[in-house]
């Protein structure tokens, strides 16, 4: 049986007074790691809380792991781990005690909670510090505790709201590495929100961009890179020999006009092939540049 998609949002609307937080959002999320990208106030956190069943929609519906958030909020939350954006850890508890406590709240027995707390704190790199009180932790360590508590009951999906918020570059890099490992090595589906493009590119396979409560872009990141790597070659002489040479070499290449060609490339090897074929056919290259917007440009335009 095909497993249910992680998240299916259909026509979700939510307003707070005159502010529209979600405006007819329709999106399907099923990649191992999906990034929710957008400026502050774009509606990312509201969408995440709606996915958790903590925010009631004015209209529309959301299915998470095959269950409706309106009727099965508690069952859904039992299978999801969530790390809020804001500071939410009691400073007087140790990391191990907090994770244990939350494991018990999520239905694990006391014995299992102790074992799982140890496992997840090790997995996020906090084994040595597990007996220290959280109040003595750096911001980066506290973010890892939030991640550990979200993982403790082995959820099918974890939702991380701005997990790199406030971190310095080194802490941020380490956190992104841990998150990537969660989706790649631990096999847990991840939905991460951020307003930083680089965070999403480094951790996710798929991106959903939100602006003013609406989804403006929804695409796989890897495929996007393949699609946008289309080059436009402007030549000094007629481009026909170059086009013939590249087609013969297996590339997709079409003429735009007599001295301009569009070439689809897969990787840097193809880029070298264009250069070498131009040299071999004696067609001088005046200019070789991406054809159309790059992934960054496309994402930035969607973010607004």
């Amino acid at each position, binding site marked *: 049986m095909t497993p249910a998609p992680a998240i299916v949002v259909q026509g979700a609307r939510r307003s707070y007074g005159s502010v529209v937080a979600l405006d007819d959002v329709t999106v399907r999320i099923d990649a191992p790691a999906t990034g929710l990208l957008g400026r502050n106030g774009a509606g990312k956190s509201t969408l995440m809380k709606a996915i958790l069943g903590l925010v009631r929609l004015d209209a529309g519906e959301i299915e998470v792991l095959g269950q409706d958030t309106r009727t099965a909020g508690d069952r859904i939350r*039992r299978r999801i781990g969530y790390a809020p954006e804001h500071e939410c850890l009691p400073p007087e508890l140790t990391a191990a005690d907090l994770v244990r406590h939350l494991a018990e*709240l999520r239905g694990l027995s006391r014995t299992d909670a102790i074992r799982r707390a140890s496992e997840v704190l090790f997995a996020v790199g906090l084994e040595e510090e597990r007996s220290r009180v959280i109040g003595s932790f750096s911001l980066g360590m506290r973010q890892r505790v939030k991640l550990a508590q979200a993982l403790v009951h082995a959820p099918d999906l974890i939702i991380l709201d701005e997990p790199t918020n406030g971190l310095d570059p080194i802490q941020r890099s380490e956190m992104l590495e841990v998150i990537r490992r969660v989706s790649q090595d*631990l096999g847990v589906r991840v939905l991460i929100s951020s307003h930083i493009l680089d965070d999403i590119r480094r951790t996710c396979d798929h991106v959903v961009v939100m602006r003013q409560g609406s989804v403006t872009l929804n695409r796989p990141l890897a495929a996007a890179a393949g699609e946008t790597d289309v080059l436009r070659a402007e030549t000094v002489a007629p481009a026909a020999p170059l086009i013939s040479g590249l087609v013969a070499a297996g590339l997709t290449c079409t003429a735009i006009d007599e001295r301009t060609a569009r070439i689809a490339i897969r990787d840097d090897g193809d880029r070298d092939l264009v250069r070498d074929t131009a040299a071999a056919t004696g067609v001088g290259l005046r200019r070789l540049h991406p054809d159309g917007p790059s992934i960054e440009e496309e994402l930035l335009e969607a973010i607004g």
Partner: protein
Amino acid sequence: MSEARIHDVRYRPYEGEIKGSPRRAVGSMARWSAMRALGARRPWTAKVVPVGLALIAFGPAITVLGVKALLGTQITQQLPGDIIPFATYYQLIAFAILAYAAIVIPETMCPDRRSRVLDLYLSTAMSPREYVVGKVLASAVPLLAVTTLPLVFLYVGNVFFSDDPFGYVGDHLREIPAILFGGILIALVYTLMGLAVASLTSRRAFATVGFVLMLIVTGLIGGVLRDALNLGPNSRLVNLQFQPVWLAQKVIGEAPASIAQDGPLQRFDTPDTSLLILSNAIIIVVCVAVLALRYRRSDA
């Protein structure tokens, strides 16, 4: 050559049983909250207040039984049968009970709002109602130890030092359920009052001050109505300080006038029993309503 990699992250999918029962969530919340409020797994300074208040509550019983143990039965036989009647015991430990409600109970609830860990709790399958029930248990069970165990200790000690233990039990049989009922009533009412006040703020100090002010102000109003306006003992129903204590005393049996002559718990100066039952019921309902209002799932 193979490019196999070994990742020792000591993490594996959990294959144990995940029980989604509310009882487990409530039990866990109650246990961890009570441990925190009582200072478990925290520095000794956090243990001083709860342990000190418990000792104060046991103080009169330890003193009475200590006197009996030291002076022997011949001398104690010359004293009244019960040096401290059970109904009067609450009067002696009222400070410890009220101080517990004012200081320890807010500790179970306020830090969750202050550190915003409440958001984390409610992102699990636990409902706000289960959270509140957990907090009530976390506060009431230790308070129950303060309101019940000293009297049980005194009762057992009295039996032990009695010339006729079986006769003592026979004479005081009715007091066993009364002690339990009184202890539960006092613990429940003061717990709900303490939690209702604590639910209004994220700062424990504010909750403590608010609780104390509430008792002082209603006590003053009750005093003015009774003494200055001569409205009679029922006017003291506005005084929230001793409502459950008065009712518990009525259930256990009136304190002898010779002992309670000048205290706030004089037998002839407490409101009617039926009105006390009503006022305690109203306090419980109002406190539950405040908690329900403060801890409703506001958005789902």
